[in-house]
């Protein structure tokens, strides 16, 4: 039995389809992240699960019980929105206690039980010292934790979280990301988590559901989303800087394959036992290679791409290098080496063909993943 079962749900707003025939299952204790760009239908999906939007078609089951027509307050789901609203006149403890003070819950949570639960959650969120403070005495991150705490004190069957940490600054967001994952694991929560940040999605999700224009594109574990992506859309969605894409023609040689990059006047040679590649012989394909799988050389190497090193941007412990290879076409390379002496000079890029991807240029579907992936 699944904790949550979503079967062929669709949601139309007038003539626009926001969610299209979406199906997935979520096990008890599992976290699924919904990843997609703005307008992909992530939030609408979550609102459908919460009962805040009526389904156009399809069904939702919670512990095998169809809840599609049950009102939101009886669904045993807790939703957390990005724009949290804490009650300004209540302190942290009172804000957190609020959901448990509802008339329907008074029997379940007496004073003693309530305090115990709040302290347990406050401890997990590391806000125990802040319990007596008012919202205006809290930093952005502390407010976020309080709001999260208010969701977590309830023991719903499923937590629905919509971009809970998106508007925090980068450093705090990265820290909260790990903390949230740890809390979900400790409390054994079942979570559906919406985000547009691929790192957050890969990190927090036991599985990641990639959504595009209301449709499921891929559902899988982080490793698969990262290195066995279904198509070029998923490839571009995850990665910073994003994957580099080249157009080429696939040729079959003796015992190997060759991608001819016409514009770059070079060939990428690789070996594979994949039979399905044969049908792409002499056809156009897209070659995808992540920035960390390209190496830079100051001298010409066989099967390399020529360009001008036009910018070096330092990261914490690596460098992001931009190479202009033809008018307007920039390639991004991630490297541990600072190529400062090569700035504005000619360089040659070698592609690690064992870590490249090939895609169908028509529909973007994946054709091949390098054998070291």
């Amino acid at each position, binding site marked *: 039995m699944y904790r949550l079962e979503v079967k062929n749900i669709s949601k139309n707003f007038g003539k626009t389809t926001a969610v299209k025939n979406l199906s997935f299952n979520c096990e008890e204790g599992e976290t699924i992240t919904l990843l997609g760009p703005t307008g992909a239908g992530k939030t609408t999906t979550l609102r459908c699960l919460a009962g805040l939007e009526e389904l156009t078609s399809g069904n939702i089951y919670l512990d095998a019980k169809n809840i599609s027509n049950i009102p939101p307050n009886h669904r045993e789901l807790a939703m957390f929105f990005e724009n949290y609203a804490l009650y300004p006149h209540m302190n942290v403890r009172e804000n957190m206690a609020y959901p448990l003070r509802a008339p329907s819950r008074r029997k379940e949570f007496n004073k003693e039980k309530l305090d115990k639960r709040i302290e347990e959650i406050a401890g997990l969120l590391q806000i125990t010292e802040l319990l007596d403070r008012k919202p205006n005495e809290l930093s952005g991150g502390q407010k976020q934790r309080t709001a999260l705490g208010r969701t977590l004190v309830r023991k719903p069957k499923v937590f629905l979280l919509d971009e809970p940490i998106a508007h925090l600054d*980068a*450093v705090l967001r*990265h820290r909260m*990301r*790990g*903390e949230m*994952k*740890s809390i979900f*694991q400790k409390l054994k929560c079942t979570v559906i988590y919406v985000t547009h940040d*691929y*790192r957050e999605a*890969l*990190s*927090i999700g036991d599985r990641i559901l990639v959504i595009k224009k209301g449709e499921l594109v891929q559902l899988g574990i*982080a*490793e698969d*989303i*990262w290195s066995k992506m279904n198509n070029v859309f998923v490839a571009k969605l*995850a*990665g*910073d*800087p994003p994957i580099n894409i080249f157009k080429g023609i696939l040729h079959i040689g003796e015992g190997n394959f060759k991608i001819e990059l016409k514009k770059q006047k070079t060939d990428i040679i690789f070996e594979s036992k994949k039979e399905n590649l044969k049908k792409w012989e002499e056809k156009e394909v897209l070659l995808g290679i*992540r920035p*960390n799988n390209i190496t830079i050389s100051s001298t010409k190497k066989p099967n390399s791409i020529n360009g001008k090193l*036009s*910018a*070096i*941007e*330092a*990261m*914490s*412990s690596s460098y*992001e290098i*931009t190479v202009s290879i033809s008018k307007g076409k*920039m390639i991004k390379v*991630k490297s541990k080496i*600072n190529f*400062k002496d090569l*700035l*504005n000079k000619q360089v040659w890029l070698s592609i690690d063909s064992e870590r490249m991807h090939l895609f169908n240029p028509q529909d973007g579907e994946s054709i091949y993943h390098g054998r070291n992936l």
Partner: protein
Amino acid sequence: MQKTDKKSRIKLRLKNINKYYGEKRDIHAVKDLSFHCRDKEFVAILGPSGCGKSSTLRMLAGLEEVNSGTIYFGDKEVTKTPPSKRNVGLAFENYALYPHLSVYENIIFPLRVKGITEGEIKKNKRLHELIEAFKIDKSTLNSYPKALSGGQAQLTSLVRCLIREADLYLLDEPLSHLDEEMRVAMRTTLKIMHNKMKKTFIYVTHDQLEAFALADRIIIMDFGVLQQTGSPSDIYAKPVNKFVASFIGEPPMNFLNVRTKKEDSNLFVHGGSYKLSLSNRFKNKLKANTKYILGIRPERVHVSSNKNTFSECVMAKVNVFENLGEINQLTIKLDEETIITEVEPNIKFNQEDDIYIHFDIEYMHLFDVNTLVCLDDKL
């Protein structure tokens, strides 16, 4: 590298600059600040809000009076020179666009002011290059400031600044209103433009990633005081104090509370349940039986599930394991403290797994618990 740097001309020099605000001059916003920029250098002034970085930039532009100290552009003192005579290009966080002029007219304004004819402006190569590079499309060029998003207005303001033939370009958070994807893309564009223009840029930001990516040299400020200046890699490797160490780096540096102990004339540091050897760098720098803060970057913390991998290691438990695609991140609980490290994508751990940590002692920093000064030998 050092030699060529010394040869290049000093473009800008600040000497003992002070700035006070408030009726009673009781807010000391910039304290005795001195630094210089070389010709063609890209310098970022980095610090949290209220550290005095914007005040400094405004004094360089002549928009704020200097209470004491001197500013030189090249050999010429400009401390009291009005803004219009300083020949600097300015772009601020709040765009300051002319509302009655279109985006295009705003951008070419500095050229018009110089008396350049419309015909010549149309042929201006830099103009077209900048418009294309910063992705200002035709419809945006024809619209008026009130119709622009914050990001578009900022890019307009930035292009208007760069179109000028100035000696010095002063930029205050010029990308802050762009969405994340665009901000990263435009950051690269700005870096490429700086390489092409070969001019001196001073860039104010609170975002360490931006400062790192763009700058040849970073000046870090806190509470109006210059904390450290150096190349990104220098500041990253050799922070002078705990503030700089914690402000720079993502994921941030790990800090642990330790105490020194002497055993057979050798000094060790002890944490809750562990003991670590010390590098010779710290010889004669530390006292025995004294508290210190140990700092170590995530990439200098090595881990294994096998005790025998390292000669010296500490046992701990995995708290969080995060797959981030290109790399995996681990949060480890060591006694009551937290350590973050990164491992290759093919290495996996689960929550609550036992893990053995090895600290690369050559890359360990120690900070004085009171002054928070870094006690490393200056390399």
